[in-house]
């Protein structure tokens, strides 16, 4: 009896050893080189900064006061404007990619099954090219001498000698361009499983056009849409390279503001505090989104 039990225990121990020797190195790597570093980053936010911006004792909440806009010169609304602008840019980019995704996904589904993978590949391909290249490429299209800008001049949208880039419009475009595939892929996955008999039933009940789409197709694609919103909104909110290359000075976003605290004008504790606030806002957004999802119903796949 006791011998059998030790054999079971022995086997369980061996199983644990196998798990440790196979999964251990990979998990350990991520813990050591990502979880520990990000814990260090978050910890820095509670220190004071020395003259070179490096963290020193004593512990302080001053970095968070700086985030809220308080400094030696009094209160400044700059940071709040930047947070709101980031939120707005991410929101518009998410909306644009969602609106474009629906026709694209159903266009692909309306084609023969054999060429669908290729059509999907051509959506995803641009996002595999380098971030810098595919972002600065938009300067060629929207910059001061570019053809699109020339048309915009003649329509009176932008004053002469100024391009559509750098600026807010270029940032929104760049973000939507960068993250469109992240919306299309999950949406495609849920649209592929669409139950078309429901659509037929709706048609039999004389529903058509927008009404038919809204009541039969749309509810079935909500899980994919919600995953897509998360995959686009979160990285767009904290994006660095797009506002950096396409934004200019007037379209500063939270990502560039954080990066500046570690490169141009170092102030590590302030930068770390900004990061914490950004992550907290992202987390709150996710939680709010989950609640909203549960109310709409059918948001199972939205859980990452």
């Amino acid at each position, binding site marked *: 009896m006791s011998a059998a039990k030790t054999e079971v225990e022995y086997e369980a121990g061996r*199983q*644990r050893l196998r*798990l440790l020797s*196979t*999964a251990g*190195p*990979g*998990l350990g*790597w*991520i*813990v050591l*080189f*990502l979880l*520990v*570093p*990000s814990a*260090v*980053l978050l910890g820095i936010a509670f220190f004071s900064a020395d003259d070179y911006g490096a963290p020193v004792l004593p512990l302080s909440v001053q970095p968070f006061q700086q985030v809220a806009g308080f400094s030696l010169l009094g209160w400044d609304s700059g940071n709040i404007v930047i947070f709101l602008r980031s939120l707005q840019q991410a929101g518009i980019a998410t909306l644009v990619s969602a609106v*474009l995704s629906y*026709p694209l996904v*159903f*266009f*692909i589904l*309306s084609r023969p099954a054999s060429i669908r*993978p*290729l059509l999907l*590949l051509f*959506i995803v*391909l*641009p*996002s*595999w*090219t*380098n*971030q*810098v*290249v*595919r972002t*600065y*490429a938009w*300067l*060629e*299209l929207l910059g001061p001498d570019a053809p699109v800008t020339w048309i915009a001049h003649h329509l009176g949208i932008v004053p002469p000698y100024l391009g559509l880039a750098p600026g807010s419009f270029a940032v929104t475009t760049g973000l939507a*361009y960068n993250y469109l595939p992240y919306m299309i892929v999950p949406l495609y996955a849920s649209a592929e499983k669409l139950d078309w008999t429901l*659509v037929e039933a709706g048609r039999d009940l004389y529903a058509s056009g927008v009404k038919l789409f809204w009541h039969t197709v749309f509810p079935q694609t909500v899980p994919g849409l919600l995953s897509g919103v998360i995959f686009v909104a*979160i*990285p767009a909110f*904290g*994006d*660095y*390279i797009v506002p950096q*290359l396409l934004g200019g000075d007037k379209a500063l976003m939270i*990502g560039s503001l*954080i*990066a500046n605290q*570690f490169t141009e004008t170092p102030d590590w504790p302030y930068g770390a505090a900004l*990061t914490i606030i*950004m992550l907290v806002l*992202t987390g709150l957004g996710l939680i709010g989104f989950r609640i909203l999802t549960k109310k709409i119903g059918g948001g199972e796949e939205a859980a*990452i």
Partner: protein
Amino acid sequence: MIPRSVRYLLSGISWPVYILLYTPLALVAYYSFAPAPNQMGHSLHAYGVLFHDAEVLTALQRSLLLAFFSATISTMLGTLLGYGLCRFRNRRAKGVLANIPSLIIYTPIIMPSLVFGISELIFFNFVHTYTGLLAAGLQTMIIAHITFQVPYVTLTVFARLAGLDPYLFDASHDLYADGIKSFIHLIIPVVQPAIIGGFLLGITLSIDDFTISFFTAGPGSVTLPIYIYSAIARKGITPEVNAIGTLMIGSIIALALIHFFITRHRERGSQFAARGNIT
């Protein structure tokens, strides 16, 4: 299923979007043939300059080294990790503790790359200050690139293994294959497409990345994307920058298409074989 009029509408919206997706990339290629900035005409001048520019060539070499080494190590770590999680995890275990591996694996995927990069910057900085090891450079970039690639390789391998018949493992056990033997003779061959896919994904992710590279790079480890970024900041978009961009876009598209058609060809072959077995 979709009425004809709606199909026309869908095509009418979708083809322009497809064109728009490739217009910026095509413009990069188009302007790479300009003889000088803002000058009309075509020439291969920029490419000629490029192939004699030692700085660009070393940057290219570094980018390739970075992609190759990081993808190789992350493929090894990720394959083992995916295998271990699929085979040896106690599935009955519940609660927070049982979810820790998944949490760890998903962190690099959901963490904004800026936060990722800055965390690494600070961590390597501290480690270097206190131990003298890990000076910012190609080594720190390789470490960071491995970190963001491992989860993707793991998920690719895991998905492949989870789709296998569990009796395969029992069968190999009955034939007296021990753990290592069955790993080499059963797992590796069966998971091979996923391993190759994971490796190529790692290469693609490495070449795609700028933000994490930028914050983990040292003064002597300028890779191609970092070179382009600083060249634009210094003197704007020149035909040379466009030429590098064109070559990068071209090679990644070629690589993706080749991989796509090879795997599709193989899938068709295996489907055919399966059908042959049934009859």
